[in-house]
């Protein structure tokens, strides 16, 4: 019996101790009318050898195309040590560290994570993770409404330069509590928030402004001006950031005169594989003054009976298992193992390494864009500084060009038609430190022939 250790003798002896005639008798409190006879729709069990073969075949089917996709999930080198340690049973198969004395490893690791991520984002406190970047934006909106001391407004501005899926998750998640998300267009020249359009909200009662940096298009927003404007209007500022970029970009805690109030983001770039979209982890940091409004678990340092250093979950009165219907969020299980991987990644890569990764991403993306622009019919959508993504306009239908690239084993970019139809035929491309001169050359050549093939069609 897979994973069940009982011998026939065990079963007999155990039933004897219980005083039951059979295992079946243990279910005698369930009404007979409800009992199910077998699970006919489930296939027969497989041995480990058989499942290994099946999964290997399915993996092979998916292959390893050369990818220039980003849009919220990024291909980075992951040091071998990251997952070798993360999948140790003592991390992998432990529960949430409620029994602190038996969970000091996980607790200290979370404390180290909190230290690294608050420093990276320039904030004061962090939680132990949320589900992903999208849910972190949603939770930040709810938190801003809760934490705002002067406004009771349920309105949050989330500009169109924020990842469209983050906007969708925010609406699906926070809309049920009455939050209303207002949008602001971007400028066609820069791909950045239209400050004039934003200015139309001046004087209105709004809880918060979300600023994504770099924004969904990869462009760099004028975060100082945006932050100061929002603060002057009495709004809180929610920063949504890429952690890799923070090796080079000003941390949200230093935006404008006073800094952002809440910072969130997708933690995936820090040592988490792409894996079709998850598991990833969302991070959230804030200032000390808002710590009691923060959702999720938080670890604090303390001492034990003998005065020794130790770690424990703290401020639990915010959480559902204590506060029930009045908790800051219903979150319980988070994305602990991915936060573990990220902590090991940040330790291995260090401050210099993270800067090197970020520089390499920028360099490769600039190289990629230059190579693409050499092809006929390709234009840059936006001027101005960017990090490691860029929008390119094609004079052929993006769908057809991307399909032609796929046939050559290349994932050439994300088609923006569904979310930004006004751009026409537009793709979002990304290159990270994983791309080589040869990769970029191969892509540029393939793009050239794909454009021609589509032209000919």
């Amino acid at each position, binding site marked *: *019996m*897979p994973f*069940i250790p*009982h011998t026939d003798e065990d079963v007999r002896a155990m039933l004897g*101790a219980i005083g039951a005639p059979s295992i079946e008798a*243990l279910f005698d*409190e*369930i009404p007979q009318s409800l009992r199910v006879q077998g699970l*006919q729709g489930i296939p027969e069990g497989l041995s480990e050898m058989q499942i290994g073969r099946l*999964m290997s075949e399915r*993996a092979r089917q*998916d292959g390893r195309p050369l990818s220039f*996709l980003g849009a919220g*999930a990024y291909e980075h080198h992951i*040091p071998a*040590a990251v997952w070798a*340690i993360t999948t140790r*049973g003592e991390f*992998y198969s*432990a*529960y*949430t*560290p409620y*029994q602190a*004395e038996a969970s*000091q*490893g*996980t607790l200290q*690791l979370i*404390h*180290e994570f909190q230290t690294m991520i608050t420093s990276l984002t320039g904030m004061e*406190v962090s939680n132990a993770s949320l*589900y992903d970047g999208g849910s972190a934006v949603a939770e930040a909106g709810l938190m801003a409404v809760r934490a705002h001391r002067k406004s009771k407004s349920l309105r949050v501005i989330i500009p169109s330069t924020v990842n469209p899926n983050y906007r*969708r*998750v925010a609406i*699906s998640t926070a809309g049920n509590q009455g939050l209303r998300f207002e949008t602001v267009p971007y400028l066609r020249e820069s791909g950045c928030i239209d400050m004039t359009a934003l200015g139309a909200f001046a004087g209105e009662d709004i809880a918060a402004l979300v600023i994504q940096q770099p924004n969904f298009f990869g462009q*760099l927003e*004028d*975060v100082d001006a945006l932050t100061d404007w929002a603060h002057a209007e009495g709004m809180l500022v929610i920063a949504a950031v890429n952690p890799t970029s923070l*090796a080079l970009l000003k941390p949200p805690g230093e935006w404008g005169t006073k800094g952002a109030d809440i910072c969130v983001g997708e933690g995936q770039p820090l040592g988490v594989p792409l*894996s079709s979209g*998850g*598991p990833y982890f969302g991070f959230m940091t804030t200032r000390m003054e808002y710590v009691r409004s923060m959702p999720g678990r938080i670890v604090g340092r*303390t*001492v034990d009976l003998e005065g020794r250093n130790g770690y424990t979950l*703290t401020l639990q009165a915010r959480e*559902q298992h204590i506060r*029930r*219907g009045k908790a800051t969020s219903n*979150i*319980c*299980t988070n*994305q*602990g*193992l991915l936060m573990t991987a990220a902590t090991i990644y940040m*330790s*291995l890569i*260090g*401050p210099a390494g993270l800067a090197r990764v970020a520089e390499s991403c920028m360099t490769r993306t600039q190289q990629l864009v230059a190579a693409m622009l050499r092809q006929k019919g390709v234009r840059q959508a936006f001027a101005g*500084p960017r990090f490691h993504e860029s929008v390119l306009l094609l004079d052929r239908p993006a769908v057809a060009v991307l399909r032609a690239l796929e046939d050559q084993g290349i994932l050439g970019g994300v088609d923006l038609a569904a979310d930004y139809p006004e751009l026409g035929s537009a793709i979002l491309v990304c290159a990270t430190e994983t791309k080589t001169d040869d990769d970029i050359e191969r892509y540029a050549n393939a793009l050239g022939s794909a454009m021609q093939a589509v032209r000919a069609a």
Partner: protein
Amino acid sequence: MNQILEKSIFEYSRPGRAADAQHPPQNEAAAAAVETIPAALRRRGKPLLPEVSELDVVRHFTRLSQLNFSIDTNFYPLGSCTMKYNPKACNQYAMLPEFLARHPLAPDTQGQGFLSCMFELQEMLKEVTGMKAVSLNPMAGAHGEFAGVAMIRAYHRARGDLARNEIIVPEAAHGTNPATATMCGCIVREIPVDAQGDVDIEALKKAVGPNTAGIMLTNPSTLGVFERKIEEVARIVHGAGGLLYYDGANLNAILGKVRPGDMGFDVIHMNLHKTFSTPHGGGGPGAGAVGVSARLEPFLPVPIVGRDGDHYRWLAESERPQSIGRLSAFMGNAGVLLRAYIYMRMLGREGMSRVGEFATLNANYLMARLQAAGFDLAYPERRASHEFIITMKRQAKELNVTAMDVAKRLLDYGFHAPTTYFPLLVPECLLIEPTETESRETLDAFIEAMVAILGEAQTDAAKLKGAPYTMPVRRLDDVRAAKQLELTWKPVNSAA
């Protein structure tokens, strides 16, 4: 257990040290690239990340791991958490390089292997729960609860039934239930359970009405017993126009024996990290797939995997106009779902039915033996489901020994503590769930430890008060942790 504490990673740090092999090669163009960032947008100071060697990192985090209890090292009878063995094959085959490298926005044509696993997982989950349709999107149990209650709300709204905003929750429910109802903009009404642990039917009848959106139930309940009046509960709630939500936290108890769909539930979430053995990871990730009856199917969260002939694809959002929407940036915890898929395929039809049987056998065995050894059961005349409750109320009064003391002392005997002080309804409770993957010898050793602790309680209660003694730390000062918040590491010289 290892008594030596591990210092902070930051204390290993030395300026200029680095794990160089992990850095991308220096690029001559880098300086020019960075120059394109306007000065005002640039970072000035370095972030506080450790400057250490690769070996420093490997030793530090390996040592930290050794300070933990885990399923791989210890029996972990944590009630309501289903800490069963996480098969190594599930991890290994979910981490095949092609699966790890696949970008979430890669086209369907380059994900047929992955998508076929997801489609088959949806189908298998429908079969074991008796529900009409499944979405794999939610990333944890509470996230699945959110999806479920949001669907109930969307269903009533779509019918123009706008008054229905009350969610009924039994008082023994997980804290996530009322917290979820609040997150969905609903009002929570708690109802009592009777002396036998079943829902108080009279109280339920009084609670339902034109404002009832639905009821959230766990069955078997958090009291470790099967809700025997479930059919009557379903009749009453449905009769009042409400829907039934099934919290799948305890699905392990009834896997292959009875299905939530057959009990009359309209929507359920499944904790794949419990019943389907994906790891808990020290706090996550989980996966909280949701299943629904036909009337809620249009409201399922996106994305959902569909099949056209031999081709698997994501259903477009336009095909799901009434969906409650998107709950994750991409598709939820794909890697966790792959592990659950592998587990279900390895167990197969028969293996899956055995899960409920042996989880129940182990729980009833442990319950019978502990009762015989002098422990008081919260519901002595009931069968255990896959878990059961011991109450230390008598010992607390007579010997001044609490459930917490027993829990902490168990750590010294090498066993993780059961769940303590939940459900709140039972005073001084220990909620014990052995799971099906534990052997009789392990259960016997746990019983011996419990008997020994009961002996200590009678002869040397003070000893229990001071437990644990063999862990890396003794009992921690939680009050100080909350009052003097130290939420990040500070260098010693700046802490003063």
